[in-house]
């Protein structure tokens, strides 16, 4: 399966491309899933792990596992995106376990430079406060925030990824956001 070869650049190449080199439907589906989810998966992993290098590793691992297991995907059990986030979550938790045994993670400092004006200064202050507040959250709470605000999943998708009910996911998320709001009360 070599997409770089199979992907044609013109009609003549398309017509002349050998059938064996043409990407399969499964490959095309995975390709679409990858392009629509790459940054979201990374954002979720980085938000949970607070380590860009580890997030990159987890993202790559998740897509590789998903690629190898794509034939196991069952659409009746949920969306492809939720299935992919489930794989990424397992990879991230494995990384979290490994890192937890080895060393404490360090958060990436929030880059507030380049902001000017009152509103932007307030936003900048809020971001710093939020970053600090995120540091105070538990990994579970941070995971909820990452899935919702960094990866952009709906409550139903979050519930599917975490294996809980949608209402339970909504309740947990509400509590976490309230916790963040309280932490940033002065800046809001």
């Amino acid at each position: 399966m070599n997409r770089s070869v199979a992907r044609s650049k013109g009609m003549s190449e398309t017509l002349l491309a050998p059938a064996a080199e043409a990407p399969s439907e499964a490959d095309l589906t995975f390709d679409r899933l990858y392009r629509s989810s790459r940054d979201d998966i990374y954002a979720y992993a980085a938000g949970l792990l607070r380590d860009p290098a580890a997030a990159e590793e987890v993202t790559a691992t998740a897509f590789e596992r998903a690629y190898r297991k794509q034939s196991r995907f069952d659409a009746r059990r949920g969306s492809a995106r939720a299935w992919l986030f489930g794989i990424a979550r397992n990879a991230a938790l494995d990384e979290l376990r490994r890192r937890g045994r080895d060393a404490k993670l360090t958060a990436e400092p929030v880059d507030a430079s380049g902001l000017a004006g009152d509103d932007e200064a307030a936003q900048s202050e809020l971001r710093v406060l939020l970053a600090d507040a995120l540091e105070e959250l538990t990994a579970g709470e941070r995971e909820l925030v990452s899935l919702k605000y960094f990866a952009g999943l709906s409550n139903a998708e979050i519930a599917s990824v975490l294996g809980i009910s949608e209402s339970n996911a909504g309740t947990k998320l509400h509590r976490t956001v309230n916790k963040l709001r309280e932490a940033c009360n002065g800046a809001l």
Partner: protein
Amino acid sequence: MERSSDHGNLDTALRALRPTPRPAFAAELDERVARGFKSDSQASRSPLATLADRFRGLSPQRLLFATGGTALAAIAVATVLVAVNESNPAPIALEERYAQQQRPPRITQFSEPIPKALDRLAELDRLAGNAAAGQAEGASGVQSSESLSFSAVNRNSGYLRAKREIERSAEITLLAEPGDVGADSAEVFDAVHDANGIVLRSTTTAGADAGAHFELLIPTPKLGDALAAFSAIDEVRSRHEATADITAPTVALGERLQDSRAKIDGLLAQLAAAETQTESEAIEIALRDERLHAAALRARLDKLRQRADFSRVSLSIETGASATDSNDGSWGIGDAFDDAGHILSIAAGVTVIALAVLAPIALTLLLAWLIRGTWLRRARARALA
């Protein structure tokens, strides 16, 4: 309203904190995805590792089909092997029979230890030598016939000293079609004739219970060839051979015969020296009795020698169930059902044995897999706590 505004601000601020991947990492991952995650090192991976990867990538349904197909194929192959092995045992049996034929005769019975018997043979020779010397010293014309007999004993002792007396016997059962019994019997007679053997008794039955039985005497040196000839006539159902060492009784009889000869020689000497009629008559009566005794001993000795020279063979031709399954030799629907049932029973046996071996292993693996899954879920949950 204010709370809604706060919420909006928080949402915006949180989304603004969304981490984004480095462009270099994104490009690298794009490339890896485009290559299907095939790394350079993967080209040198072992076929086993590649196969394991493909195995892991299979969906549960495909995995089930693949496992079931493999199991069915394995059972089919094992069934065919067992069935072929069961239905064609002849080559093995023939080889075994050939090996048995090539083996030297097995001494199954000794009535006397060999060194002791050899000592007695040496003593017999010594006595024979002494008697011959005494005979040369005597000048009586009456002794001439007796000395001839004694020479025979002497020859016997030399014969005994040259080789051991081994009695051999065999039982062989042939399996034939009912229509072949007559022809097989004729071949038996031919084989006996070729071996210069003797048919002591023969019985041949025709019809539904067709069969034949032969009691044969075959010259011992030709027994191997004769048995091979009998075995070639038809399928051999069973074959047994037995040997017995009869050296000791032969030697003992030779000794007694030699003693009898010596006694006769003594009586002849007394007869020559007898002075009265009454004395001569008494000696002649004793001489007659002793000669009868010597004749009886010689007859028994001849019988023993015959047992060693000729082997008794009991040969039967049977028409058993396996040979008469199909009366006309053709293969019909009943045979097909029988064969199918047989094959199915073999397949069932193979399956049961395979299950007996694989079920505990599969259960152990399943248990290990479940335990690992549970442990992993808990460990991941702990990592979040």
